[in-house]
């Protein structure tokens, strides 16, 4: 989120109440959205539900190009548009809702660190698998990403995005990694999360925080998405407490709202069996 908007937020947003027509935009659920985008979108949805703020999920083919930062999802509240989880958390905080107020300073530092761990490893691994693994790219990413666009454009956009992601991987030193090494990293990350969670219901005992929303978004998406092979899912499935954690959040925050049209976003994801 831009700083100008940031300053604007702190001055004005606090005064306004949460409007009824708040909306979250993401790419088309059924045929377009990719693993990483779905994870990010689900994380924001989970966060909003934990804050108990109603939000309608709207799917748009061009969501990526509507977003102020070029990344999905983004929320449209009143006359403001905010994208991605970090800025959304700040924005909501300015509105007077916060999940992490009860934590002490050290816990806050740990929460931030673990959120960066998820972004740094899980999100990057998702992007790697989507855009740098040839089989996944051909079978899943290409057709899905380009599905809403007409002929020459679909190739151009896929090529552009792929090029961008591959250069990013090169810049952060992931370009030389093999798929197995990436899975290894995912495993390491899940192990760390599993250790940190332990037997607690949420990462910081009884109350969920934005970290819980973020972890849920990524793990739930990985668990419920069919890729070319099951290796990624198997890595997560090894950790029993993480699966229980996903079920707990799904049960507490998504299932009882499932009849609402506003939670329509969740209905498409296969439930139950895939989590067993």
């Amino acid at each position, binding site marked *: 989120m*831009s*700083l*100008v908007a940031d300053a604007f937020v702190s001055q004005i947003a606090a005064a306004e109440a949460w409007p009824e027509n708040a909306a979250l935009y993401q790419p088309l659920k059924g045929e377009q959205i990719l693993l990483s985008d779905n994870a990010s979108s689900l994380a924001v949805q989970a966060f909003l539900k934990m804050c108990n703020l109603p939000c309608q999920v709207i799917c748009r083919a061009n969501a990526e190009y509507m977003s102020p*930062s*070029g*990344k999905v999802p983004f929320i449209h509240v009143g006359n403001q548009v905010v994208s991605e989880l970090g800025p959304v958390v700040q924005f909501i905080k300015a509105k007077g809702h916060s999940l992490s107020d009860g934590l002490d*300073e*050290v816990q*806050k*530092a*740990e929460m*931030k*660190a*673990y959120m*960066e*761990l998820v*972004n*740094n*490893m899980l999100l990057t691994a998702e992007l790697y698998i989507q855009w740098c693994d040839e089989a996944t790219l051909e079978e899943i990413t290409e057709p899905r990403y380009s599905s809403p666009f007409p002929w020459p454009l679909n190739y151009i956009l896929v090529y552009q995005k792929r090029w*961008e992601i591959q*250069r*990013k991987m090169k*810049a*952060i*030193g992931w370009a030389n990694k093999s798929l197995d090494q990436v899975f290894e990293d995912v495993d*390491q*990350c899940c*192990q*760390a*999360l599993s*250790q*940190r969670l*332990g037997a607690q219901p949420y990462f910081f005992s009884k109350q969920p925080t934005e970290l819980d929303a973020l972890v849920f978004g990524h793990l739930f998406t990985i668990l419920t998405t069919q890729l070319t092979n099951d290796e990624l899912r198997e890595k997560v499935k090894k950790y029993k407490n993480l699966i229980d954690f996903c079920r707990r959040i799904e049960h507490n925050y998504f299932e009882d709202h499932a009849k609402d049209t506003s939670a329509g976003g969740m209905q498409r994801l296969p439930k139950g069996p895939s989590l067993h």
Partner: protein
Amino acid sequence: MAAPMELFCWKGDWGLPSVDVDCLAVLTYARFSGAPLKVHKITNPWKSPSGSLPALRTEENGVISQTHQIITHLRKQKYNADYDLSARQGADTLAFVSLLEEKLLPALIHTFWIDAKNYVEHTRKWYAESIPFPLNFFLPNRMHRQHMERLRLIRGDAWIEDEGELEKELYRDAQECLSLLSQRLGSQKFFFGDSPASLDAYIFSHLALLLKANLPSSKLQQHLKSLDNLCNYCVSILSMYFTWDMAASQSTSPRRAQAEPQDGDEEPHKRRNQILSVAVGLIAMIGYALLSGIVSIQRGSAGNAVTGRVVIGEEDEED
């Protein structure tokens, strides 16, 4: 025991054992874990076996050039500074390293390489003076471009549009990160109590570089200096683990003078330097010849089947 592992890294300055974040992290970890390394402190990345620094030359696995991989390798060789940590602390290590990479590192890159004043007066100056002759003209610029590219890719395209805004955002993130680290450290000696672990090596390398460099424009440095426990943490690690280097860096020049002939003995580098200097000389001569018209290349002159023909001086006069 096989031959010792050899580590190639940037040389030190400003009271630090190395001026590069990654090299410093590896060096620090080696000190913490007591790994016996033969350290080559060099100023020419082309002399490294992998072409980049840091690089670790090992017996079994060849050359390893990424910080994480080097540390993992050392750990596998039983030089493990994290041996006493619980699984939970191991998880914390991973998390805080991510925090550093995502929040502090971009701001560090910006401070050293993108901020115009710092780059021209400090970073480029240092590298241009340290890197040996022909390379010092283009290596600093190339490093500058690489860092700029890296920052652009990490932060997305948006920042080119508004550089001032990006800067503020980067520094805000970094300051937050520093504050978080300060809170996490509290009054402990190291991040996990009384003995150093790999996390300390990563954090120390980032903080010490920022603390010790004489930057002309140093917003972030000011913020770090205001966090007393982090400053003390850096100073105490420096004095506990690098005292010897500090003493040696006072008398850097004689030591380097001794090191020089030893480097010269290494046959491949010598050969490469020779080839390089001959190539540079040739290019200069040909360039001069072309530019001043001693040699000119004619294209498709009338009735001539040969499209490109070299006409040497004497023929030139006939025209």
